[in-house]
């Protein structure tokens, strides 16, 4: 799309920046990647009153241009890099009018970069409520930039802001804020001369950040380093004195433009809410209640839409089989690709529901309180207060949960959470566990009320939580972080959630999943489908020929015959060959080649285990007929006549499913969230090793 002007949105976290972005662009937004960071690049288009089109880019929220995390570092590099396609013609700094002082620090930094800038005073309604009166014109005059009071939430002042963007000057008109040159006079002058930059503050920023900026050549960066040595420049001391100078400027600016009636803070509504929500006892009880509610909802509310999606694809597949000429291409399209697509779409209800809740928790300000309350416990195991939500969400499904880790600001905490979430017993493991438990654990009660099978299942759930926490604890020592782990964060005032934002988040997250992780999932499903549906040489043809002989067709019912054929085909497919190939490796775990096939096909999704077992033992394998699968497995014998599924084998298999990363969707989503293949690879490796060890130990203990 053609753009006439590029506008960047910059502001502190919790200032309503995303709301403003949504108001300006509507559904007209695109999500992409910034190189090297995990935060999404959100761009969108906005029609200006003069008919021109503005491209709006939403930059990560930050308190300062000096980044404290990798994600924040993107802000300065976009604003400063002249070669970057996204380099804005205009910057809109959005500030919280009810807390101008802290918010203006970022404005003064941005203004000194000498790019045309507009100041948007958001939450004017809140400021009025707090009896803060702001002389907007006086501020505009002192700063020398347009100052537009808005309320992004209520959509007030947006037209004025659009008009201001349309009529913005092409040259920066803002007043200088502080005497930047005084901070490091010789160094700034020398960098301006040698690197050819024309703004003193830009030169100073290069001195601070040259190590992480991609647009500088290594020689330039090296030269800046030498200059710093020469002029005895200490980055942190310089940042400290700059910040103090900026706050002095801000205090002067606000002294006669903003007046605030002193109200007792303790009386505010937010504080009253906090007294209950972060209470020693009620706080935890309420949080537990909310978690349970979310967990239940992901399970209960998603069941029906998931069934609808599943049924739709079954219907579409069977009708396409009728319409299209039969042949390998149709099979690939209908069974392979459509099957994969159905595997992607089926996640949408869970993702939408979880993100609906999370965006409510974030929007209201409750999520920061969760972090505040849980920090002490979670920190001990290397996690973050905010890790609680993905971990509990993991009981339903790891895919939306891993996507939800993006609100964990600390990089290391976030990575550990992503790495351990798939260990939590997700709903796809449930059919596998119930099948195996029913097979080997007697269905009777102990101590009157406890059902033995139920106890075994509960045990598996608890065990998964313990293993997740233990692995997190170990990773705390393994993972090296470049960033220092701060907890210093704002506790925003409680607000009502913005329902439009909640809806947009649900829509946007589901879309991002389908478009980005979906590709990988479909690809993997197609590969697995090919492996299971084709065999080397003419083995499949031979099987078909064999069963066309009269001794089979005459004496057996046609569907029974079909199942026998399917079973024999699977055995001779590439997956079957692979199952035979890995048989020696999994033999120490007590698994035969048939289980090997199931382990391979389960990579599409864990619950496929049941279906594969049904095909291998040639029984009709839909959910209602689970008992027939169970019967067949129960009577299955090894070549020497001993039963295949002993307690040792069943528990060993459960341990394998507890630890192994048998989920292509999770692998895809971990890649999408970390933007680096090494993370899912490392995760896959460590989980496979753990699975193997746990199975090995279990098998040999119970044998």
């Amino acid at each position, binding site marked *: 799309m053609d753009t006439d002007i590029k506008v960047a949105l910059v502001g502190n976290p919790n200032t309503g920046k995303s709301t403003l972005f949504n108001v300006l662009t509507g559904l007209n937004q695109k999500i992409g990647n910034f190189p090297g960071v995990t935060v999404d690049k959100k761009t969108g288009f906005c029609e200006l009153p003069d008919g021109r089109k503005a491209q709006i880019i939403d930059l990560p929220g930050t308190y300062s241009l000096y980044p404290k995390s990798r994600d924040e570092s993107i802000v300065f590099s976009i604003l400063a890099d002249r070669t970057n396609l996204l380099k804005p013609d205009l910057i809109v700094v959005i500030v919280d009018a009810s807390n101008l002082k*802290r918010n203006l620090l970022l404005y003064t930094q941005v203004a000194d970069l000498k790019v045309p800038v507009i100041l948007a005073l958001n939450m004017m309604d809140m400021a009025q409520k707090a009896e803060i009166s702001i002389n907007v014109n006086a501020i505009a005059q002192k700063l020398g930039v347009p100052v537009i009071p808005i309320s992004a939430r209520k959509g007030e002042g947006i037209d004025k802001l659009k008009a201001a963007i349309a009529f913005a000057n092409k040259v920066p008109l803002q007043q200088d804020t502080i005497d930047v040159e005084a901070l490091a006079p010789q160094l700034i002058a020398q960098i301006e001369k040698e690197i050819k930059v024309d703004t003193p503050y830009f030169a100073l920023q290069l001195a601070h950040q040259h190590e992480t900026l991609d647009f500088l050549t290594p020689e330039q960066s090296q030269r800046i380093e030498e200059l710093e040595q020469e002029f005895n420049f200490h980055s942190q001391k310089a940042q*400290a004195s700059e910040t103090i100078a900026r706050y002095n400027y801000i205090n002067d600016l606000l002294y006669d433009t903003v007046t605030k009636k002193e109200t007792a803070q303790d009386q505010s509504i937010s504080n009253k809410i906090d007294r209950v929500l972060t209470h020693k006892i009620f*706080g935890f009880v309420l949080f537990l209640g909310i978690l349970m509610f979310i967990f239940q909802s992901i399970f209960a509310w998603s069941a029906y839409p998931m069934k609808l999606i599943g049924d739709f694809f079954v219907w579409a597949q069977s009708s396409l089989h009728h319409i299209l000429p039969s042949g390998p291409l149709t099979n690939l399209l209908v069974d392979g690709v459509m099957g994969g697509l159905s595997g992607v779409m089926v996640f949408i209800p869970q993702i939408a529901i979880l993100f609906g809740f999370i965006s409510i928790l974030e929007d209201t300000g409750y999520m920061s309180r969760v972090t*505040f309350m849980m*920090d002490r416990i979670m920190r001990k195991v290397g996690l973050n207060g905010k890790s609680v939500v993905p971990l509990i969400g993991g009981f339903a499904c790891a895919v939306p949960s891993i996507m939800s880790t993006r609100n964990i600001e600390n990089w290391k905490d976030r990575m550990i959470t992503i790495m351990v979430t798939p260990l939590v017993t997700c709903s796809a493991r449930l059919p596998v566990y119930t099948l195996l438990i029913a097979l080997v654990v007697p269905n009777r009660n102990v101590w009157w009320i406890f059902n033995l099978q139920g106890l075994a299942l509960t045990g598996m759930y608890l065990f998964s939580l313990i293993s997740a926490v233990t692995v997190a604890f170990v990773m705390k020592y393994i993972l090296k972080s470049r960033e220092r782990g*701060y907890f210093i964060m704002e506790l925003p*005032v409680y607000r009502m959630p913005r329902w439009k934002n909640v809806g947009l988040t649900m829509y946007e997250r589901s879309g991002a999943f389908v478009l980005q992780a979906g590709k990988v999932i479909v690809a993997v499903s197609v590969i697995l489908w090919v492996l299971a549906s084709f065999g080397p040489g003419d083995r499949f043809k031979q099987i078909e020929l064999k069963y066309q002989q009269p001794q089979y067709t005459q004496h057996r019912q046609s569907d029974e015959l079909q199942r026998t054929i399917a079973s024999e085909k699977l055995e001779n497919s590439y997956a079957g060959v692979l199952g035979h190939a890995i048989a020696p490796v999994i033999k120490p775990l007590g698994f035969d080649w048939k289980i090997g096939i199931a382990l391979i096909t389960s990579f599409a999704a864990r619950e496929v285990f049941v279906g594969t077992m049904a095909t291998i033992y040639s029984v009709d394998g839909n959910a209602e007929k689970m008992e027939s699968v169970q019967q067949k497995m129960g009577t299955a014998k090894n070549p020497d006549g001993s039963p295949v599924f002993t307690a040792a084998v069943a528990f060993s298999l459960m341990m394998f499913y507890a630890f192994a990363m048998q989920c292509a969707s999770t692998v895809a989503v971990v890649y999408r969230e970390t933007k680096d293949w090494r993370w899912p690879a490392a995760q896959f490796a460590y989980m496979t090793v753990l699975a193997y060890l746990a199975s090995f130990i279990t098998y040999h203990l119970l044998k």
Partner: protein
Amino acid sequence: MRLSQLGLGETGIVKEFTDLEMSVKLMEMGCLPGEEVRVSRIAPLGDPIAIHVSGYQLSLRKREASTIILQ
């Protein structure tokens, strides 16, 4: 006296910092020398704490609060 030693509801005025790197972050967040701070909340398990500073609520761990020296 350090900020970490204040009880719930008690106030103090920031004098200086013991950790330069942390001080840069704290000052950016509006916690500057000369600024009044009040402990407004303590987490149920005793750590972290929340302070009222520069017109808003800031939460930080006790270890981080101990780098702030009060007048």
